Structures are given as structure tokens and as C-alpha cells.
């Protein structure tokens, strides 16, 4: 396995992003190709999971668009990601907070993690 991980580091560029985990609110700026043109779009929401490792690592961001929940999965090494901004770090007890999908309104709030 280490052989593959070392190889991945050589083949794929890993951009530096702030450390974030499930429960954190992030704003992902990603590139969209429309024909020849390229433009940037932002997707802000709560990270509900990070899975896998190395090149294949992905994270899922969930946001409420009106009353509809929208989730987007990003490969962390994707060249389409322009930047990731950590908006707010949340305090949750699990690494995959899928229970968030069932919650709306008041119960969907996530406490902010305080650092002293």
C-alpha cells in the first residue's frame, strides 16, 4: 500500500487547504467549464463526511437550498477546486454526521468549536 501512496504523491499535485473535518462549514470555490470559458462558483455548506485517503479522498458538503437539501461530493485532489475556505468549525461527536440529513431548522444547528 505504501508503494501506491508514494506513487500518488509523485503523480498528483496535492494543493494545500486548511484542515477541516465533519461538522465544519466550508466554502468551496470550484471551476466550471462552459464551452471554452472557465468561471468560478462557490458552494458553501457543512462537511458531513471525509472518506478514503490519498488521491481518492473525497468530502461531502451539504447545504440547504431553500427547503431542499443539496449535497456535493468533491475529490480533494481535484484540479477543479480553486480554493477551500474554512468558514466555521463545528463541534460534533462523529466523523460522519449523516443524522444531519434528517434534521431541519433548529435541530440542524451545529455548535461552534471554541478554541482558547
Amino acid at each position, binding site marked *: *500500500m505504501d*508503494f*501506491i501512496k508514494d*506513487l*500518488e504523491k509523485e*503523480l*498528483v499535485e496535492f494543493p494545500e487547504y486548511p484542515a477541516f473535518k465533519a461538522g465544519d462549514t466550508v466554502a468551496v470555490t470550484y471551476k466550471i467549464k462552459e464551452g471554452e470559458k472557465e468561471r468560478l462558483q462557490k458552494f458553501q455548506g457543512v462537511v458531513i463526511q471525509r472518506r478514503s485517503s*490519498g*488521491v*481518492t479522498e473525497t468530502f461531502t458538503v451539504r447545504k440547504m437550498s431553500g427547503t431542499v437539501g443539496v449535497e456535493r461530493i468533491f*475529490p480533494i*485532489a*481535484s*484540479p*477543479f477546486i480553486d480554493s477551500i475556505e474554512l468558514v466555521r468549525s463545528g463541534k460534533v461527536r462523529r466523523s460522519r454526521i449523516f443524522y444531519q440529513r434528517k434534521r431541519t431548522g433548529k435541530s440542524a444547528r451545529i455548535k461552534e468549536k471554541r478554541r482558547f
Partner: protein
Amino acid sequence: MATGLIGKKRGMTSIFDENGKALPCTVIEVGPCYVTQVKTEKTDGYNAVQVGFGEKKENRTTQPLQGHFKKAGVSPKRKLVEFSHFAKEIKAGDEITAADVFAEGEFVDVIGTSKGKGFQGVVKRHGFGGVGQQTHGQHNRLRAPGSIGAASYPARVFKGMRMAGQTGNERVKVQNLRVLKVLEDKNLVLVKGAVPGFNGNTVIIEK
């Protein structure tokens, strides 16, 4: 058989192409292979090149094979495979690397030994549907094959009837895998998609 080389499956990963698309790929350590024998129409009745891959201890090699390797001037090899249609002139003892044979964008076939699944029933082995219900008298035949033929005529089961048996652990060829990358210094070839067998297994790549 066409031109090819022997290699070792190292594992899977994914890389991004120029459009930013993630492509699943298998990393294969290909070669360096050494030519152990060149067969010609004159001496053997057909043209082929026999190449060897992987080191082997000399005291684990049979004496006839020891002589064979000595004649070619190479150390004992673990696996020997014959290929035909090598483009350039080669002679016994030559080293062939991945970059000599494969280039990015080419399509290759990969032959390996699939993972053994043991003795399996028809549902896993041949994709039978099984019995569709759990009630109406079904209690011990949910994954049974059903009828295997008619009665007094033909009074036998036809050859090739799909039944339970050893699954996997057989030679499998996967065709038309695109070569995504050839890493010359490391003797690695990345092909798109999966390749039969475990990591570490010997595989044959041919064009």
C-alpha cells in the same frame, strides 16, 4: 500472440486527466524483462521471442532450466513467456523495458489469474436469479439452479450445462485497457481500469 511483456500488479489508484476527470487505474510494474531465447522459423518452425521476468534463486532452478538461462547469459527468472512480432531486432540476453514496448494512449490486453472464490453456487458463478420468492412452498431452494434438462428424452444432461463449481483462480484476459502513463525510470505502467488477480500477482501485458 502479439508483442508484450511480463509484469507484476502493484495496486490501484486514480489519477486526473487533462480535463480534470478522475480515472481509476492499475499500477503494473512491467519488466525489465530479459530475452532468454529467440525462436526463428529456421530452427523452431515459427518466429517468437521468449522473455523472462522476476529473479529466482539458482538452487531453486532445475538443471535443464539453469542451462537454458546460462545459454542466454541471464540469471534465472521466475516466469517465462513467449511473444511474437517484436518490432526491432533482438538477441538473447537483451533487456527490454516498459518504455521500449508501451506508449501512452495505446490500448493493451492484460492477462492474469483471477482471485479464487472457491466452490460457488450458480447464483454467484453464473449470475442465476435464484428462486424469486421466499414463500409459497420455498424453504430450502432459494439459490438452487432449478431444472437442468428434460426427462426421458434426451435422458442425459447436456455438456456445458452451467452448474456450481470452482469459481475464479483461472486465467482471465481483459482487453482494450488504455495505457494512461508509462514511468520509464520506475518501470511502471498505469492502465485504466481493473486487472484480474491480487496485488503482487504476475500479469502479462500485450499489445
